[in-house]
């Protein structure tokens, strides 16, 4: 149905405009605040005209919070999570959709359940596991009495230890293990016509060949969408990096922003904090803009 009423046109545009202002206003205020000097930024109300100290503030924020290496850390983590997620999700969905094996439904539900257990809910056990990846096995050995037995017999005390604290692996791996991507792929794979699978079988392609030659190229837009979402999600992670990076060299940009926020009783350098925020916001913004075309296509429709 196409409405041709000027009043309705006006109203819909007004609604759109209000939405736009609501979405953009915080960013505008951040950018304006980042351009003021210390005095202007603390004026009440703050002037909404940009000041002249923008580059100076940016530079100060960059050096104070040591953002260079932190941004690199963030970038490595976000890219790692996005890539890992794209690969793992594609593989698991491929297995769930295209293979009939015993326990398939069980595994499917197992993955499904992780949707209900986000990282924040299971953060303590996850931390324990990352602190010592082998601790579950140690527990098994202890509980079953095997370690006691081995100690009695050989005199060797078993203490398995393999920690991932303060490492990129530790930052990335626990964030990869969630189900969202698997479901996105599963939905997409279910829309791929069976005849395509059969045609590939007739052409002599085995499972892996079919996956690489047919399915992956077809799901390019899905990968782009999932990659983008996961990059943003990982980039914005706060709790997990804060928890497992005790060493400054592995801290991420988002957690380091905290350094720029003025302490109670300290100098209220909100202009610097806002400048830092702008810098940290920039990489995800670039990723979204670059991937936008693919991203939207991947979410709304499948390529015909």
């Amino acid at each position: 149905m196409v409405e041709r009423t000027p009043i309705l046109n006006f109203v819909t545009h007004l609604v759109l405009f209000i939405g736009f202002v609501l979405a953009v206003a915080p960013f505008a205020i951040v950018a304006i605040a980042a351009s003021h000097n210390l005095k202007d930024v603390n004026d009440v109300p703050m002037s909404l005209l940009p000041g002249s100290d923008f580059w100076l503030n940016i530079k100060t924020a960059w050096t104070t919070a040591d953002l260079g290496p932190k941004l690199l850390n963030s970038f490595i983590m976000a890219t790692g999570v996005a890539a890992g997620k794209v690969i793992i999700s594609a593989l698991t969905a491929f297995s769930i959709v295209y293979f009939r094996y015993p326990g398939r439904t069980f595994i499917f539900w197992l993955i499904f359940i992780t949707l209900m257990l986000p990282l924040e809910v299971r953060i303590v056990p996850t931390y324990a596991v990352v602190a010592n990846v082998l601790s579950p096995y140690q527990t098994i050995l202890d509980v079953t009495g095997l370690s006691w037995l081995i100690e009695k017999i050989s005199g060797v005390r078993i203490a398995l230890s393999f920690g991932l604290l303060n490492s990129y692996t530790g930052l990335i791996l626990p964030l990869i293990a969630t189900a969202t991507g698997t479901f996105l792929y599963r939905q997409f794979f279910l829309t791929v016509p069976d005849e395509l699978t059969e045609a590939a079988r007739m052409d002599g392609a085995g499972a892996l060949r079919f996956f690489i030659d047919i399915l992956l190229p077809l799901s390019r837009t899905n990968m782009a969408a999932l990659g983008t979402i996961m990059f943003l999600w990982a980039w914005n992670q706060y709790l997990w990096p804060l928890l497992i990076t005790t060493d400054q060299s592995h801290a991420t940009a988002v957690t380091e922003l905290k350094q720029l926020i003025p302490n109670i009783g300290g100098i209220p350098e909100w202009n610097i904090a806002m400048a830092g925020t702008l810098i940290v916001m920039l990489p995800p913004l670039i990723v979204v803009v670059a991937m936008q075309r693919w991203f939207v296509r991947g979410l709304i429709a499948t390529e015909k």
Partner: protein
Amino acid sequence: MASITIRDVKKSYGKSPVVHGVDLDIVSGEFVVILGPSGCGKSTLLRMIAGLEEISGGEIAIDGTVVNRLEPRERGCAMVFQNYALYPHMSVAQNIGYSLKVAGVPKAERTQRIQAVARILELEPMLDRKPAALSGGQRQRVAMGRAMIREPKVFLFDEPLSNLDAKLRVQMRSEIRKLHRRLNATSVFVTHDQVEAMTLADRLVVMNGGRVEQVGTPGEIYKRPASRFVATFVGAPAMNILEGIVELDGLSLLGGSRRLPIPRVGLPVGAKVAMGIRPEAVRLVAPGSQGALNATVDLVEELGAGRVIYVDLDGAAFSVVTSETVHPAPGATVGLKISPDDMHFFSSETGARLDVFKASVPVPAH
């Protein structure tokens, strides 16, 4: 080129059987069409030959080798799918050459073979295009090219023309026929379209409800249908059927209003029999002519080349195909003349053809 032997092949999904023991021998180089209504198991049978469906019972052999446990690629079959099933992200050339790529054929040879196939199918100008940029007929040709390039022992077609418009369908039909004459590869073609089946087949297999009803040349199937199902399924408009009961001195039709003086060989009095007449075999004559049945015209369908006239014969619906210039108006009375040679008889119970009956005398006009 290969022969296909199908021995008591069965298929069931879970507990529900779909194909109940099919026996079929396909000679090398033959073009066999499997015809049947949807859900009769014809596609399932084809897919079992292809290796896309597991065989629940029986045996399928290609060139003497039992292929029950072989993967599709090891059977030497190529298949053309109903929806073409082209890889949307590959160009026409890549689509056609994909099986060779999988088989590890070197690039130079691959290109050469793709060119050769494209030349036969007149696809050369569009080798670099994606399937989305092709018309239905072109996509169909690409699908055929994909099957041809492997030089398979057996071609399998799963209703490949049903997505095309009427004109293209006729054109592709003759192209498939020409192609078969040229390659002379054993072909199995599944369709629910009887015109397609009649025109393409060396031999026709009519299936219904998971069973083979009849195997024969299109002519045999049309002239001597082995069962009531085949009789009514093949031919358009469908064969007219009149229910009758065996009596002491012949066959009583239409609830006793007409009778055929035929011997009731072997059949007890009271046995139910169906008499069939093709609409093309009925002649329209002036009402009240010698040996004609009077009927009332219900509806006239103009076909251009002829007409289908639907009449009411003592309460039974009856159709007549006529090319004559007579144009009876609905409601008019016409005479129908039926030659005894054109009558088919089927058991009402089993549907099987009965050859014992031979109507020797024209239907008396009451």
